[in-house]
C-alpha cells in the first residue's frame, strides 16, 4: 500500500493538526514558552526531513512525540544537563487510594485547579499524566515515546496519579480548613 504521507502536502496537513498537542508536550518538557516554541519548530523540521514517515494517522501523533522527546533529550545533553527523571519509579509505593473519597473534593474543583496540580507535579509524573490522560496515548505508545518498558509506564502512571490525587485533595481541603479556623 502506498504511504500517503510521502506526499508532503498531505503529510503537512496531517502533522499540523497535532501542533497544540506538541506544544503542550513541549511545555511539559521545558516549562518555558520560548524553549517550547523552539522545540515544536525543531520537531516539525525533523519530521519534514524524515524519510521514514509513518503510514497512518494513528501512528503519526506518537511518531511526532517521539521526535520531540528525542530532540529535547539531545538539547539537554548538549547543555550538559540530564533530564530529571530518575528515582521517581522506585521511591514511593503505589497508592491507589480507592478507598479515599478524594473524588468528593475533586467534583468541586475548577478545571484550573486540576491544571495547576498537574503543573506542580514532578517532571516525570507530569509528563506521563499528559501523555496518558491529556493526549490519550496507550501504554504501548507511551512506552515508545519514553523509550521504556510498558511495565514502567504502568507503575509510573500509578504513582503520578496517586501524587496528583494528593495535590488535588490538599488544594481542595485548604479552604475548608481555613474557614473552620476563621469561624
Amino acid at each position: 500500500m502506498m504511504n500517503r504521507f510521502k506526499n508532503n502536502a498531505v503529510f503537512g496537513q496531517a502533522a499540523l493538526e497535532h501542533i497544540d498537542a506538541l506544544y503542550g508536550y513541549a511545555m511539559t518538557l521545558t516549562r518555558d514558552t520560548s524553549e517550547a516554541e523552539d522545540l515544536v519548530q525543531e520537531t516539525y523540521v525533523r519530521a519534514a526531513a524524515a524519510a521514514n514517515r509513518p503510514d497512518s494517522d494513528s501512528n503519526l501523533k506518537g511518531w511526532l512525540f517521539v521526535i520531540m522527546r528525542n530532540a529535547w533529550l539531545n538539547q539537554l545533553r548538549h547543555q550538559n544537563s540530564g533530564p530529571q527523571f530518575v528515582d521517581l519509579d522506585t521511591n514511593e509505593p503505589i497508592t491507589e487510594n480507592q478507598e479515599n473519597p478524594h473524588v468528593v473534593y475533586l467534583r468541586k474543583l475548577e478545571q484550573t485547579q486540576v491544571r495547576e496540580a498537574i503543573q506542580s507535579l514532578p517532571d516525570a509524573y507530569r509528563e506521563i499524566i499528559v501523555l496518558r490522560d491529556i493526549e490519550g496515548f496507550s501504554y504501548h505508545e507511551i512506552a515508545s515515546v519514553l523509550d521504556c518498558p510498558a511495565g514502567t509506564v504502568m507503575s509510573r502512571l500509578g504513582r503520578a496519579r496517586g501524587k496528583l490525587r494528593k495535590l488535588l485533595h490538599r488544594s481542595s481541603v485548604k479552604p475548608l480548613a481555613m474557614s473552620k479556623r476563621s469561624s
Partner: protein
Amino acid sequence: MTKCEDIRGRLTLYLDGELQSYERATVEAHLSECESCAAIFARELSFLNAVRESGPLHVASPEMRAKVQEILTQGSAERAQLPASSRTVRSQSRVSWLVAIATGLLVLLLPVVVWRIVREPETPSTTRPSSFALMAADAHLRHVRGQLPLEMESSSPRDVSTWFANKVDFSVKLPNYQESSGQEKLYTLEGARLVGFEKDYAAYVAYRMKERPITLVITSDSVAKPSGGEEIAAGKLMFHYNAIDGLKVLTWSDRGLTYALVSDLDERGQQSCIVCHEGAKDQDFIKPLKPH
C-alpha cells in the same frame, strides 16, 4: 485473592482501555453485581474524567502555527539540516575509542550468524540473552515498525560518526569499509539515533542489506558486557549469539566498547555474503567462527 481484589486490581487498566474484550466483559459483569466495586469504579472514573477534561493545557499561538505551516510547506528531505540553536557544546568526549572494526564486523559476522542458524536451527541458547542484546533487539523491532525514527539520516559513515560526537561518551567512527575494501556494495548505511540503556545513551546505527534492516548498537563496555547465548570464540574476541523474537543478535566487546548486531536476514542473502567474504582478507578471522 478474592474476586473483588482481582477486579479492583484491574480497574485502572479497564479505565485506560488496556484490557482485552473478554477481560473487559469480566470486569463489567462484576461491576454490575458488586456495589462496593462499582462505587470504587465510579470514584476512579470521576477522578480520571476531571484530569482528562482539564486539557488541553496549552494552545499554540497563531504566530507559531504560521511558522510551523511554513516549515511543513517547505518540508522535504533537503531540510535535514536543523536550525542553529543556542546549544552549549558539550565538552569533548572523555574517552576516545576508535570503532574502526565496527562496520567490517557488520559484514563479517552476519553470515556467521545465519550460517549457524541454518546448520543448527534447533540449537538452544545456553543461557539467557544479556539485557543489552534484548535492548538492541527491541530497538531494532521498534525501528522497523516506525516507532523509533532515526534522528539523523545519511549514507555517509563520516557524517554519522560526526553526528555522534558530543552525544555519547565514546567516539563512534565508522569507516567506509566497502569502499576501502573495493568490494561490491552489499549494504547501505541509513542513519543513526541515540537509544537509552542503563541510564545512559547507546549509539544506534541503521543499515540495510538487500532491503532488510540491520542494526548496530554500540555502548561503552563499562555500561554493558556481552553475556548469555551461544559463545563463539574468534581470535581474541568472544561473541555471544542469541535468537530473540525471530531476530539474530550477536554481541561482543572490543577495545572498550560493546556491540550488538541485529538482523533478520534470511538464508539466501547470508549465503551470498558468505561467498563474497570467503575470499576476503578477513579469512583468518572468520574461520574460527564457523560452526564445526
